[in-house]
């Protein structure tokens, strides 16, 4: 696909960040990201990554757009109610940046299709709304050695962490058990804030800048406007990542340059 806008001009303001330049933009252009879930988090993540100029964005959601999505899921419009989220998101994202290759997938991620959906990606951003799918994605990411940015939201509150065992715990280390999914209250500004933070982590990882949320969970509460940070530890008995070597100082996949050290 040919971009309608000269390729690097549109990124001038981010290429001007100290230490970024054209190299950073080239890294973004050669990266591929899976955004799993195109709801409130996915809207903010996918939009930010497309604007930042990742090369390839695979967007996955099995749902269709419902009227109750529209308070926060700004990838979808009133006219998209009833359409597949993947195709509605594709339309919006393509109109933002024609230079990004967008691959819509209308599937529910499960153990049988996760390799096909997440394979070949530089990084995965988990924007799902249930632990069942999140655990499938987590297990696959651990086994494939691909980093995963976790985000979740409830009401005005949300959490973010960057996971890449063995440097960090995996989702099952932190939450070995989880209740079944239910419909939860969410304000768009909260999912947008958390999704933007997830996109920030993905971009930093790809570009190799900054300090990632490795082994740290950031909690943001919009009700009190407080950010707090939890120190996360691996569970050496973790059934998912316990066999992945301990203490190895490497980041699997991608550029591997960004680190918390």
């Amino acid at each position, binding site marked *: 696909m040919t971009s309608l806008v000269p390729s690097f001009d549109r990124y001038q303001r981010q290429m001007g960040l100290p230490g970024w330049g054209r190299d950073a933009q080239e890294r973004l252009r050669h990266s591929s990201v899976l955004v799993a879930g195109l709801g409130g988090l996915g809207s903010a993540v996918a939009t930010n990554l497309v604007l930042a100029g990742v090369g390839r964005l695979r967007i996955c959601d099995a749902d269709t757009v419902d009227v109750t999505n529209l308070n926060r899921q700004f990838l979808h419009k009133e006219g998209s109610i009833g359409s597949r989220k993947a195709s509605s998101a594709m339309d919006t994202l393509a109109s933002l940046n024609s230079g990004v290759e967008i691959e819509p997938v209308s599937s529910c991620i499960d153990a049988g299709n996760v390799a096909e959906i997440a394979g070949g990606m530089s990084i995965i951003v988990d924007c799902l709304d249930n632990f069942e799918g999140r655990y499938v994605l987590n297990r696959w990411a651990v086994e494939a050695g691909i980093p995963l940015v976790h*985000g979740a939201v409830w009401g005005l509150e949300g959490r973010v962490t960057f996971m890449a065992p063995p440097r960090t715990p995996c989702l099952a280390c932190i939450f070995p058990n989880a209740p079944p999914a239910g419909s939860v209250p969410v304000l768009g500004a909260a*999912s947008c804030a958390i999704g933007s933070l997830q996109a920030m982590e993905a971009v930093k990882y790809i570009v190799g800048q900054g300090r990632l949320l490795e082994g740290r969970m950031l909690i943001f509460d919009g009700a*009190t406007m407080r950010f707090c940070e*939890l120190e996360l530890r691996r569970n050496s008995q973790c059934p998912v990542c316990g066999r992945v070597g301990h203490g190895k100082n490497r980041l699997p996949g991608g550029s591997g340059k960004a680190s918390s050290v």
Partner: protein
Amino acid sequence: MPKVIIPSPLREYVDERYEIQLEGKSLAETIEALISMYPDLRPALLDTLFLSIFINGKKIDVEKEGWDRVIMNEDDEVSLIIPIAGG
């Protein structure tokens, strides 16, 4: 007094309070004080299948360390972490 930060999904059990200061020399006393103030919280707090406890950002292994052997300090901040999955 130690302060307990109430996560959003549990605020309905505590009159929508964000955080609660409690008397308690140990973690056990602090949590007991919280439950006696808000008995509806009991199921969520005793369900250690889902609940993790962090004090000042560091995880407490309550099974190993024991609720009553974790000593609370004046300015300690207790975070009750339960899984949330909203996307």
